[in-house]
């Protein structure tokens, strides 16, 4: 078997290619963004087209507290990573735990909102177009938050087992990219559902 060994024009060129993890995650984020785009377009297109009530302005209230929870979790995960990079595993675990708590608080907020809408306002996914598009879009996002929380929790378990240290920072960072993406999607969903759509 011959492998081309060549007298290259410039000998010993530097050869640095990007890491696989972040590139793969950017691609996944692009695919997810395309999926969310379609749901957001559907939501915007169907604003005000429901044949029957309830309408968004009658039943939706702006979830400011839970939005602050989710968005600040982007900050806490950033600090956690910084600590992991400098090798402070215990502080990393605390900030990481705080991230999970904030994410879980957001999910709890969505759950209580849905409970209110279903039991008090009588809005389900079958009720009208608003219900269909609202539960699909917010539900798709909540699903992504759930997946993110499961992944974050896995890292936390490994941290408590003592298996996470400084050298894993790059891998953990790939997960944090996903978490930031989920937060950014919420900014869009929040704007479309609670501001434009109301």
């Amino acid at each position, binding site marked *: *078997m*011959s*492998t*081309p*060994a*060549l*007298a*290259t*024009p410039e000998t010993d*060129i530097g*050869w640095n*290619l*990007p*890491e*696989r993890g972040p*590139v*793969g995650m950017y*691609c*996944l984020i*692009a*695919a*997810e963004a*395309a*999926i*969310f*785009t*379609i*749901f957001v377009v*559907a939501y915007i*297109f*169907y604003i005000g*087209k*429901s*044949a029957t009530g309830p309408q968004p302005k009658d039943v939706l209230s702006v979830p400011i507290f839970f939005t602050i929870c989710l968005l600040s979790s982007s900050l806490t995960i950033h600090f956690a990573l910084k600590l992991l990079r400098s090798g402070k595993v215990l502080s990393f675990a605390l900030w990481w735990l705080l991230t999970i708590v904030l994410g879980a608080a957001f999910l709890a907020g969505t759950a209580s909102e849905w409970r209110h809408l279903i039991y008090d306002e009588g809005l389900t*996914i*079958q009720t*009208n*177009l608003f219900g*269909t*598009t609202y539960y*699909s879009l917010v539900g*798709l996002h909540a699903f992504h938050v759930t997946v993110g929380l499961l992944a974050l929790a896995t890292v936390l378990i490994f941290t408590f087992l003592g298996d996470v240290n400084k050298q894993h920072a790059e891998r953990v960072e790939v997960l944090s990219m996903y978490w930031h993406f989920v937060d950014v999607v919420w900014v869009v969903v929040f704007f479309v559902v609670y501001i434009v759509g109301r």
Partner: protein
Amino acid sequence: MSTESIAWPTSGTATRRPFVEQLHEWVSTVDHKRLGVLYILYALAFLLVGGVEATILRIQLIRPLNHFVSPQVFNRMFTMHGTTMIFFVAMPVLFGFANYLVPLMIGARDMAFPRLNAFSFWMTAFGGLLLYYSFIGGDGLYGAGNAPDVGWFAYAPLTSKTFSRGHSTDFWTLSLLVSGFGSIGTAINIITTVVCMRCKGMTLGKMPLLVWLNLVMAVLVVLAVSPLTAAQIMLLVDRYLGGHFFDTQAGGSAVMWMHFFWVFGHPEVYVLVIPAFGFASEIIPVFSRKAIFGYPVMVAATVCIAFIGMSVWAHHMFTVGMSSNANTFFVLSTMAIAVPTGIKIFNWLATMWGGQIHFKTPMLFCTAFLFQFLIAGLTGIMLGSAPFDWQLGNSYFVIAHFHYVIVGGILFTLFGAFYYWFPKISGRMYNERLGKLHFWLFTIGFHLTFDFMHIPGILGMPRRIYTYEPGRGWDIWNLIVTIGVFFQAAGVLVFLGNLLWSYFRGVLAGSDPWDAWTLEWSTTSPPPVYNFAKIPEVASRRPLWDLKHPEDPDWHYE
């Protein structure tokens, strides 16, 4: 990286290992070459199935008022034919070649994420099985089996519970959802592989064109298959949870589905044709004994096609009745895409011009591709103008046009690719005589079928009718079209026979039977599990040329 310690079966000389052991190796493999071969074999099996379905359709239409199959079966057959050929033949076979060739061509030992690669293949595979399970389980508890019959683009509200009872449509949407995850996974893998795994010296401007084109294809898959996934989720919400996305009676919009489907559906054409361009861009230079003409322009044109290709989808919807502004936009964007495509055709012609052309089977297929793809593009421009489309939309002219693209363009280069890389994959040469027989049978059959299919379309024959009355002037054309199908079927059987015979009896090929220039020909045929004993280093677009001609290397000129 692959953790396997098993070498490829060097056909003939190796000691036979138990069948179960070999099966286990194939099922649990994460090697990009084996997964590539699995993709290709899987697609070939479905090519036969989809071909049989097409033959059933054409036998039914061979003469007016024929009773070969019932209208219901006819509807199921054209739905299954379209869905199978696009999602379970064309995409898997192109992914298979991408899987096999991209790491070899960039001097890598495997894809970036080998386990994701295996996962993606099995998702695609089970997606296909799920679709065909509908023959058994489609009607669910209601009665006997029943395949989906909503057409391959499954327009609303035909897919609603009211009009599609039973589970046949659920099988359709679930199988596309599942295989869509597989496609997205593979696309992510291809992009990451190309970005992160290139061997030393292979800058973006020195990648083989096939790698470039597969990179663009993968980007398109990420951006185009994801909307289809979203639309399938919406359809599932409608069918299972009682949602109203496409329920016109509750204010939902059927046109919304059309937009979502074609936002996927048109870029999908480019997902299929861009890797086919990649095959042509590797085969034509090697058999013309010249470097590709206008490499940077080829790359730019490809990116341009992908970019414009994302914004032409509604030319599938002129007959729906859009605003004149929308019509104008989509007519102009559709016309614009002819420019980069034309550039590519001229580049291939310029590559052949003045070259020493060897008309081996792969080159024959690529030459026919050039001619046929040009005609497909011309009828595409005709249909891309809205007034013409209002006249001929949904007629057999449209069917003839897109089969000219998919068969005359994509399948022809694909056959070329099969013959070109068969020696690398199997280690043996194919039979040139059978290859030429396949080419001529298939070319004659193709032109009988799809040239003459334009005419009943112009005469007003709509697509998807299960029969027609005599005396409309369609009879003779349908007869000729169906006769062509048998030539094509014979060609495909010769092709499969050739592959089988050559795999066992072919002459040993050696590592570089074509005197080619890209890295896959520098390793043995078939390549070892690790591809390259020493990771190569390149200095130009044709590393093997540099190796064979140290007195006049390419990097002097690039």
